[in-house]
């Protein structure tokens, strides 16, 4: 049986295929807890988890908090608006101060790519990345893969189209890292201004010239959010034009396999990345993604507690 040896989960790039499969299968088995009347197991009793969020989040923070509580850990939330970061405290100082309160796991979201690696060298508790800049969002990548596995029973050989602002998307990066390790074929489409050069070197990744090319015979269509908070004005002319070329609608979805699954990491800009009928339609797996998020985060918290310091 595979053992999980990592103390931190910062990027799916750092994990092996076996690590990722173990995290997903544990999440599958933990999912049953979330449908019980008493949604709690005593596994992490006495552990303290700090959710340290330097960027806005609803889904991820709530999901990590619920995951910790369902495993009986004590969870504390810190968001920047209410923290000393607004008074000018540096990340390292904040972390050392939090560490003095002896947490077992810090779950952090930060706007700077790689902030977690910086922190991991300074502190001795586990760190889980809840999103860092344009780098990775491993829990989202894992929950997306779990959702695809729910539908198809496998990831090997799936054709996954990822459409939108790939440059700014940590969700896309985590999915590319994870999916290619597990044998899926990834096809990317988006405006050239939003496509990072060299992205095809990450694995079995094809950059498509048009969205239609990416959608052709896709098993999974993953739409990325236009990150209005990260956009300069120069990357796209306006939302309407973006939507015309890179929005998912009832016409272009027909290019994908019949009943292909539609995914989105949220929050959705309705009418921009995809039309409302796609968001709420039969092919949408968006809410299942959110549901799987809790189980995946339970699995991550459980496994880092058994990991060794690298």
């Amino acid at each position, binding site marked *: 049986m595979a053992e999980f040896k990592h103390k931190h989960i910062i990027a799916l790039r750092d994990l092996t295929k076996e690590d990722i499969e173990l995290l997903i299968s544990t999440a599958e088995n933990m999912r049953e807890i979330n449908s019980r009347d008493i949604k709690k197991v005593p*596994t992490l009793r006495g552990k303290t988890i700090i959710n340290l969020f330097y960027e806005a989040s609803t889904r991820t923070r709530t999901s990590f908090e619920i995951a910790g509580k369902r495993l009986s850990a004590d969870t504390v939330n810190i968001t920047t608006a209410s923290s000393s970061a607004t008074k000018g405290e540096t990340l390292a100082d904040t972390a050392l101060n939090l560490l003095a309160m002896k947490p077992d796991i810090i779950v952090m979201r930060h706007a700077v790519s790689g902030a977690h690696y910086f922190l991991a060298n300074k502190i001795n508790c586990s760190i889980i990345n809840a999103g860092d800049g344009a780098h990775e969002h491993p829990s989202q990548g894992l929950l997306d893969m779990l959702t695809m596995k729910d539908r198809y029973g496998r990831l090997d050989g799936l054709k996954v189209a990822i459409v939108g602002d790939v440059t700014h998307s940590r969700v896309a990066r985590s999915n590319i890292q994870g999916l290619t390790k597990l044998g899926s074929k990834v096809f990317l489409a988006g405006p050239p201004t939003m496509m990072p050069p060299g992205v095809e070197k990450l694995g079995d990744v094809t950059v498509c010239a048009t969205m239609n090319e990416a959608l052709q015979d896709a098993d999974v269509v993953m739409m990325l959010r236009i990150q209005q908070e990260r956009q300069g004005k120069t990357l796209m002319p306006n939302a309407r034009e973006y939507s015309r070329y890179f929005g998912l609608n009832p016409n272009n979805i027909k290019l994908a396999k019949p009943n292909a699954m539609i995914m989105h990491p949220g929050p959705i800009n309705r009418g921009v990345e995809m039309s409302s009928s796609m968001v709420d339609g039969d092919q949408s797996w968006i809410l299942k993604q959110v549901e799987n998020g809790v189980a995946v985060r339970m*699995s991550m918290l459980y496994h880092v507690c058994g990991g060794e310091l690298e």
Partner: protein
Amino acid sequence: MSAEQTVLMDGAGIKRALTRIAHEILERNKGVADIVLIGIRSGGAYLADGIAQQISVIEGGAVPVGAIDITLYRDDCSGHLPHHPVGKTDIPFSLEAKKVILVDDVLYTGRTIRAAMDALMDFGRPQSIQLAVLIDRGHRELPIRADFVGRNVPTSQKENVQVVFDRSNQPIEVVLEK
């Protein structure tokens, strides 16, 4: 395997023991009313299927069978969590007011049973929990005893008792390793 092995029971012996346990369960509970079987993963879950089969042969009615994984309820997780894979708990029915027959392959310290009882309580309030095991090897560390025992085997703590299953999860033998 280099360790010295003794076969304690063969497949036929195991089957006779499970049949006897099935009879004893029915005798004690006066039939199958309100009885559910819950096997502890992985060995206990396979044996629970075997006992359920015997019960349906004897009484003609099927009893609900579930499986429980106790990894998340272990008591050796408080410090550094050991690497235990998490299995699937599968109890697709309520335990409220049921007579739960908890099934395990080998009863040893009693800690697994303690964890399993904690887990069961999260699924409702059973009328009673009774314990059926194929082998009781002694050395209890908690005040727990079995209601139905296939065979009592005196062992030393250095020895290891294992129920071996084939590929279709049928028990084929019980071995003692020194």
